[in-house]
C-alpha cells in the first residue's frame, strides 16, 4: 500500500480545522482547542476569579463549541467565536451561582485585604492577586470588557464582536470598570513624584 502522507493538523488554519471537525475528523477540534486554550483559560479565570468555576466554564465552553461547530459562520474569526463561547459559559456559571456573590468579599473587605500589601508594590504575585480581587469587585459586564481589552489586548471593535454589543458599549463598560478599579489598585502606583492625595482618598472628591 502506498504511504499515506500524514497531514500536520498543527499547521492547518483555524477555519479549516473547524470544517474538518464538522466533516467528522476526530482530532481536528482538539487541535483547535490546544491551539487556543491558554488564552481561553486566561479569559475564563480572569472573568470568574475562582479557578474551579473557571475550569468548569472552560470545559463547558469547549464542549459547547465542539457541538456548535457546524453552525460556525465563517464571517468571524474562530478565536472571536471561541472567546464568545467562553464568556457566555462564564456568564452561565455566574447566573447559576447568583445566590452567591461573584467574590467572597465585598468591596470593603477587598480594600482591607489589599491594603496591608502596601510595603511591596513591586511584588508581581501580590499585584496579580490584587488585580484578581479588584476585578472580582466590579460587575461582570465591566469585568469581561476589561479582561478582553486591557488584559488580553483586544481592540474595542474585536471585544465588541466577542461580546456582541456595540463598540460604544465596550468603551462605556471599560470606562466604568476602570473608574471602579482605580481606588482599589491605586496603592500599586509606582510613580516617582510625590503624591498629592490630600482629600481624594476613597475614589473621588465631591463635586
Amino acid at each position, binding site marked *: *500500500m502506498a*504511504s*499515506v502522507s*500524514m*497531514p*500536520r*493538523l498543527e499547521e492547518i488554519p483555524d477555519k479549516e480545522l473547524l470544517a*474538518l471537525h*464538522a*466533516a*467528522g*475528523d*476526530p*482530532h481536528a*477540534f*482538539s487541535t483547535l*482547542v*490546544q491551539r487556543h*486554550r*491558554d488564552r481561553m*483559560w*486566561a479569559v475564563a*479565570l480572569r472573568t470568574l476569579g475562582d*479557578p474551579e468555576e473557571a475550569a468548569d466554564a*472552560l*470545559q*463547558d465552553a*469547549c*464542549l459547547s463549541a*465542539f*457541538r456548535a461547530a*457546524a453552525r460556525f459562520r465563517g464571517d468571524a474569526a474562530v478565536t472571536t467565536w471561541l472567546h464568545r463561547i467562553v464568556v457566555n459559559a462564564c456568564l452561565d456559571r455566574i447566573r447559576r451561582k447568583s445566590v452567591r456573590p461573584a467574590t467572597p468579599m465585598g468591596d470593603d473587605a477587598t480594600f482591607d485585604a489589599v491594603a496591608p500589601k502596601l510595603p511591596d508594590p513591586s511584588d508581581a504575585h501580590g*499585584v*496579580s492577586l490584587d*488585580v484578581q480581587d479588584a476585578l472580582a469587585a466590579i460587575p461582570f459586564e465591566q469585568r469581561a470588557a*476589561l479582561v478582553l481589552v*486591557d*488584559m488580553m*489586548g483586544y481592540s474595542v471593535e474585536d471585544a465588541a464582536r466577542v461580546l456582541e454589543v456595540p463598540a460604544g458599549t465596550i*468603551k*462605556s463598560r*471599560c*470606562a*466604568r470598570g*476602570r*473608574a471602579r478599579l*482605580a*481606588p482599589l*489598585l491605586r496603592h*500599586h*502606583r509606582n*510613580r516617582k513624584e510625590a503624591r*498629592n*492625595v490630600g482629600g*481624594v482618598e476613597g*475614589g*473621588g*472628591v*465631591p*463635586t
Partner: protein
Amino acid sequence: MTHPAHLDYDVLADLAEGLLDEARAASVNEHLDSCAPCRDLSADLADVSRLLAEAPAPSLPPDLAARIDSALAAESRGDAPVVSLAERRGRRPWRILSAAAAAVVVLGGGGLVAQTVLEGGDDTSSTTAQQPLADPTRPSDAPLAVQVWRPTSSGTAYRAATLAGQVRDRLAQAATSAQAPPADERLTGCVNRVTGGRPPALVDRATLDGGAALIIAVRAQSRLDVWAVDPACSADDPKILQHTG
C-alpha cells in the same frame, strides 16, 4: 477655592475613552490643566490599564488540559452518552471520569453499565443520554476528509490476559498521552494491513508480557478489536502476536 468642581474617576475614564461630548471634554481638560490632584486621579486610571495589561497570564493547569482533552475525546467518540451541561451541575472532580469511563464501557459493548457509572448518586441520570451525533450535519459515518491518527508511545505494560481491558483504559486517556512522531510508511502499512484499512482508535508502542509490542485497536460498533503485533510489523508481514475482539 479655584476648583469648585473637582473631577471624579468616572468623568476622567469617560474622557479617556472619548465618551464625553466636545463641550464637556473641553471643560474637563481645562480643569485638568490647572488641577494637580485631578491629574493625579487621571494618572490612576492610566495605571489601572497598565496593571491589567501587565498582570501575568495564568498558565493552564496540566490537569485541566488533560481533563478537557478527555472530555473532548469522549465527545469525539460520539457513541458515548456524554453527560449534558445541566446534568453535570453540582458534580465535581469525578464527573469527567464518569464521562470517560462511560465512553469506554459503551465501546466495550454495553450501555447498561455505562448508565450505572453515570448515575453516581445523581437522581437525574435517566436523562443523561445525549445525542452528540444527532446533528444531521455530522453523520457519524461521514468519510473523513483526511486520515488522522498518530501513534502513541505510552510504554504501558500490557498483559495478554488483560489486553482488551487495558486498551479500553488507554482509550479513555488517549488524548492525554504523549504522542509519538507521525507514523512512517512502514507503520502506516502495518496498521492498514492489520485493521483492513479501518482507521485505528489506538496505535500504541508499548510492551506485551514484557516484550516490545505495538498495540492496535479498532472500534466497530460496540465491539473493540485489539491486536498486539511485533514492532517489526509491516504491510507485507504483520507479525500478529495476539488478536482479541
